[in-house]
């Protein structure tokens, strides 16, 4: 272990992101209002990547814990705004396909990430692995920002029809 910690500390570190996630929930709406949906997505991705970078640089366990809390804070911000963006911009008759492919893509990426992460970890060190993950995350945030901006520049095809009117209904 880079931080010379035992298995309990590993568990605490894993729980830190979950604690940050719950703490970040009340922040989602105010930050989203200030940044807009696309701004919140990019900010969420960038903060998650920064959390990983700070974890790599952490000299003590508590610093790594704080960095993982920061990462956790950004998870609901990015997650909820990605889904909202898709729900608002996708025609209702295609929403299932779009959401399934996005969620499926995340699942496949996670599976590939576990395989690659193990290899990178074996070949280098935990700190190097975190730095690589951070660079990938920041690159992902930058690519997302460019693609979202390009999407907004495209000619407006008119408002998408929502599934419902917001009233409690059947689905």
């Amino acid at each position: 272990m880079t931080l010379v910690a035992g298995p309990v500390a590993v568990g605490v570190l894993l729980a830190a992101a979950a604690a940050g996630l719950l703490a970040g929930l009340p922040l989602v709406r105010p930050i989203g209002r200030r940044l807009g949906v696309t701004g919140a997505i990019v900010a969420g991705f960038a903060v998650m990547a920064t959390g990983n970078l700070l974890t790599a640089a952490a000299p003590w366990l508590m610093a790594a814990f704080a960095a993982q809390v920061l990462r956790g804070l950004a998870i609901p911000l990015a997650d909820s705004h990605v889904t909202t963006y898709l729900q608002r911009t996708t025609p209702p008759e295609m929403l299932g396909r779009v959401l399934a492919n996005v969620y499926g893509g995340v699942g496949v990426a996670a599976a590939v990430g576990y395989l690659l992460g193990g290899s990178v970890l074996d070949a280098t060190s935990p700190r190097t692995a975190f730095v690589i993950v951070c660079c990938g995350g920041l690159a992902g945030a930058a690519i997302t920002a460019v693609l979202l901006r390009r999407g907004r520049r495209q000619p407006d095809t008119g408002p998408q029809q929502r599934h419902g009117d917001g009233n409690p209904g059947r689905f």
Partner: protein
Amino acid sequence: MVAGFGLVRRSPGLAGLLVAQTVSPLGDAMATTALILHVQRTTGSAAAVGLLLFAQAIPPLAAPLAGVIADRFSPGRLLAVGWLAQAVLTGLLALLLPPLGPLLVVVFVLALVDTPLSAAVGRCIPAVVADDDLVAANALRSAVGELGAVLGPPLAGLLFAR
């Protein structure tokens, strides 16, 4: 959290969805943990545990097909049938505890059935909340799902140890 209660009061259709979104990931996480412990105990093989996780990880590759299913059927009906099928399969798994081969097949089918369900939930949310509440509703859905996923493994570990 208070805002969450207000949102659920304004959109009663969201309450049932959130309950399901808490219970389902909790059950998934508990089942996965219990299965890992069971396979590890009965086979003593890390490779077998790896195969179990692999069987769970393949179904997202069927996302394009899952999306077509999610679009073709009413999301409410799809969720009811899908979750019922998962409950029956998990119940059979718990009762029969089959050997590794059939167990992997059932685990694969469970994950396959789950693939269109997340998309169906995503389709349901705009139907039950106002557009202004969409971000908050998606955040709440994400949080309760994560809560289930975080609480599931320790709960399953406690039950397994008894």
